[in-house]
């Protein structure tokens, strides 16, 4: 049956392509749905590593336990094969499944709610064309009381701001489309917006940076130390399209976002995203001076930096254009939270491989080579050298991170 359905839809699409002028182009609806599913990065949670597309099973770590992405292929027994377009709309718009149960907000319905009905229908149409996969969903592994799904009623009541994106008439079409992508399907804030009580996004602080899965998703506002203040729109587009620009490469969770989502989006979409992000003013508190770090860690960090880091990142911290990241002026280096800096030094990272940036150079792990204190000193140094400014890092922060991510013991 599912195969018949695919066939039927494909034939319908081909017929539309064959040029029945005036009829609604069904194939274009499918491809629009596909583009929206890419922008929404459905695959990030709904495709397990090495698994069939959208058949679920990918673990998503939250502060409250592990949630497993569900099978959203159109298999009748294990997927969403019995869902109507209305059911699908309710899930994305209202955060409720086909039986009216509340979804966990690991599914970012609080962002998808910004999508209008015709976009949600397009995704539904697209998903329906894909092969149905018979694969049972894995039960979530949440700690009590979060395992009580009905409690989400209160979460929604407290935090869920339902409603389709409303264009701002005084803004350009590019701004509105970019804002829609960022606030809606792109759900950038799911990582980049600070979360408060019960993991709810702090809307006043939207896109101002947040810790996520032992990384720090940096500020996407116009801050000069943190944020994208010194980035041009073109640099933002290059970063999202190619997994990096002349300043920095995408790594960690963002590398996956680039690989699965942004590198497959249209240049127009990415341009509009950049227009919107460049309009986000910097938060006031983040730009204040947090005080200078002590000279001891700075001079120790400087020595470690010259011996271990400068060969690639250069003594002035500027890196090598397009190959080794610039630490000087980097928003992620100077982020409120030092998690990404410490994480990268401990485990190393590899840049994402994309068609236009195929090299994917890697930074090696230093966990086995540097002590907690040494990593703290060098992290403090790079956060405060060359005009950078950010809070110092303590050895205890490094020790905690080492434990949390299972890095090797130091020397």
């Amino acid at each position, binding site marked *: 049956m599912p195969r018949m359905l695919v066939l039927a839809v494909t034939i319908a699409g081909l017929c539309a392509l064959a040029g029945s002028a005036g009829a609604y182009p069904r194939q274009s609806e499918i491809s629009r749905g596909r583009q929206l599913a890419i922008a929404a990065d459905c695959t990030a949670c709904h495709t397990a590593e090495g698994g069939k597309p959208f058949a679920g099973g990918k673990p998503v770590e939250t502060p409250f336990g592990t949630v497993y992405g569900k099978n959203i292929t159109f298999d009748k027994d294990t997927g969403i094969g019995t869902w109507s377009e209305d059911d699908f709309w309710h899930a994305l718009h209202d955060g409720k499944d086909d039986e009216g149960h509340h979804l966990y907000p690991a599914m970012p319905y609080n962002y998808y709610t910004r999508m209008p009905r015709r976009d949600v229908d397009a995704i539904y149409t697209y998903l329906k064309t894909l092969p149905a996969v018979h694969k049972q969903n894995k039960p979530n592994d949440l700690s009590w009381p979060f395992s009580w799904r009905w409690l989400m009623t209160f979460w929604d009541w407290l935090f869920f701001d339902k409603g389709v994106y409303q264009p701002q008439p005084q803004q350009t079409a590019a701004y509105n489309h970019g804002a829609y992508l960022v606030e809606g399907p792109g759900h950038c804030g799911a990582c980049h917006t600070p979360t408060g009580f019960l993991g709810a996004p702090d809307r006043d602080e939207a896109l101002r940076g947040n810790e996520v899965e032992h990384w720090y998703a940096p500020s996407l506002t116009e801050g000069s130390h943190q944020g994208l203040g010194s980035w041009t729109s073109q640099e933002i587009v290059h970063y999202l399209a190619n997994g990096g620009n002349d300043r920095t490469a995408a790594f960690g969770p963002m590398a996956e976002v680039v690989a699965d989502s942004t590198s497959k989006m249209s240049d127009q979409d990415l341009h509009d995203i950049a227009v919107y992000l460049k309009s986000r003013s910097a938060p006031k508190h983040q730009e204040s001076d947090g005080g200078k770090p002590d000279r001891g860690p700075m001079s120790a960090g400087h020595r470690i930096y010259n011996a271990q880091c400068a*060969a690639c990142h250069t003594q002035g911290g500027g890196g090598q254009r397009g190959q080794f990241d610039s630490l000087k002026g980097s928003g992620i280096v100077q982020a409120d939270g030092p998690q990404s800096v410490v994480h990268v030094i401990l485990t*190393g990272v590899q840049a994402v*491989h994309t068609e236009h*940036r*195929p*090299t994917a150079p*890697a930074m*090696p792990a230093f966990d086995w080579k540097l002590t907690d204190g040494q990593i703290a000193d060098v992290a403090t140094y790079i956060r405060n050298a060359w005009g950078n400014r950010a809070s110092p890092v303590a050895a205890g922060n490094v020790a905690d991170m080492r434990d949390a991510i299972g890095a090797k013991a130091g020397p």
Partner: protein
Amino acid sequence: MSGTTLPAVDVVLVGFGWTGAMLGQELVQAGLKVLALERGAWRDTSNDFAVTFAQDELRYYYRHALFEEPSQGTITFRNTPSQHALPMRELGSFLPATGTGGAGVHWNGQTWRFLPSDFKVRSHNEQRYGALDPDMTVQDWGVTYDDLEPYYDKFEYLCGISGQAGNLNGEMVPGGNPFEGPRRRGYPNPPLDMTYSPELFRKAAHDLGLHPFTAPAANMSQPYTNWLGVRLGQCTYCGFCEKFGCGNYSKSSPQTTIHPVLLDNPDFELRTNSTVLRVLTDSTGKRATGVLYVDDQGNEYRQPAEIVVLCAYAYHNTHLMLLSGIGQPYSPESGKGALGRNYAYQVVSGVDLFFDKDKVFNPFIGAGALGVAIDDYNGDNFDHSGLGFIGGGYICLWNTNGRPIETQRVPPGTPKWGAKWKRAVAENYMSSASISTHGAVMSHRSNYLDLDPNYRNIHGQPLLRMTFDFKDNEHRLSDYLTDQAARVGKAMNPKQVHAKYRKGNYSIVPYQTTHNTGGTAMGADPSTSVVNPYLQSWDVPNLFVMGASVFPQNPGYNPTGTIGALTYWSANAIINRYLKSPGPLMQT
């Protein structure tokens, strides 16, 4: 016959070093399904030679982390046909690699073009100097410098070679090598910044009326993006190139120039830990049907393919041809047969220079191809009348490294160990330098490769037997080059000059160079060559052979630049001629 038969591919590449990666990329771009079989393991920068541990002399140099392991298969060696050859149980004179990237991982990066006259060694020298020694089996290559120029250019721009052009389309450019063949455009990157001791060499050579230039280097003088879109970083002059992988992405290697694009191509497949035992042929013996290989569990597989390309290390290519029974093995007695004929090497020497302590050279600021060279005594750039030899070599003051364990340059007369030796090492570390000579080896009737009748490898196959010695031409050539190097050295005004002439028989024990050439020589005459000028087997037209095994003799340069050019030259012939009409690209 044993072995599971696997699904067929268009092309199977035997070995995945430089030539395998270059050819793989060209052939998948031409739309073919390509499989590479590599006997060694997967190797990449971040896992195998990251900056955090790349500079480890014990691991990489003294414990041979990147080299082939003789217990898995070695050669036997003797100087002359009358001797009993013995197995080489430890690497010494040369260091073939194993694993992806091959020796391209651990080379220095000295990237030369051969001289136009190098490709016509027999006809050129006979014309100028009369008949050659009848035991010298040198021959013309069947390709010319002009044929290869576009492909040299392509390889240099793949790698991002740093250098100074000397001859741009016939126009001489000051500061470059005036003896080089004309090049269509300059190097992709400017020459490396130079350290002190090579600059002293430059001045002395210049004052003697010679023509010094900064040597061409596969070490990046600046960040570089090649025509495949792959990026390299700027060299840090850490001095860990030869015998090491580069942790900084700043030495050209298959990893840093091709792998990121090729391995992403769905038409390409790599199988590591897959040792090819022989090329399979059909009942006529005129067509290769694929290869037989064994994995690291001892399982054998038959891999069918339309085209088989040998991309293994030079003497392994010859070995595979011999084991596969393709072509007529060379006999030194009759002079008949081309397979195994024309094995050659390199004759190298050095001149150590010891200066007063006020000359501080900081030898640790090094790079694999950081140096100033002269080509005045290479090839036929000088008159050989009355000298008693043909060919030559470059003379160069390299500052490749000042690695702490390896760098122990002491004046003659110093004890070999003990307190005095230690003091001499310490006193001379900063203020000494060496000039190298890099001499050609002309092929000779009694230098060749064949199958050993006594010793076998772990697969039960006969080992390859190497019969090689330096002949009169090499000794005269090397002595002459060493004299010239010492002359320049003296003009640098050191307090002591120690010329180390290459005397006596060739020894396989001390390290010299990993420049083994010949065995499957190329040429236009099938009686003296194994492959035609397109590197296609004369006997089996769907079999091609890449690498230095096709050199008919070895000029006075490092081979990699020419290996690169020949590979692209052959790839062009395969794609634009062979695929359109499979069959011999040159009639016998």
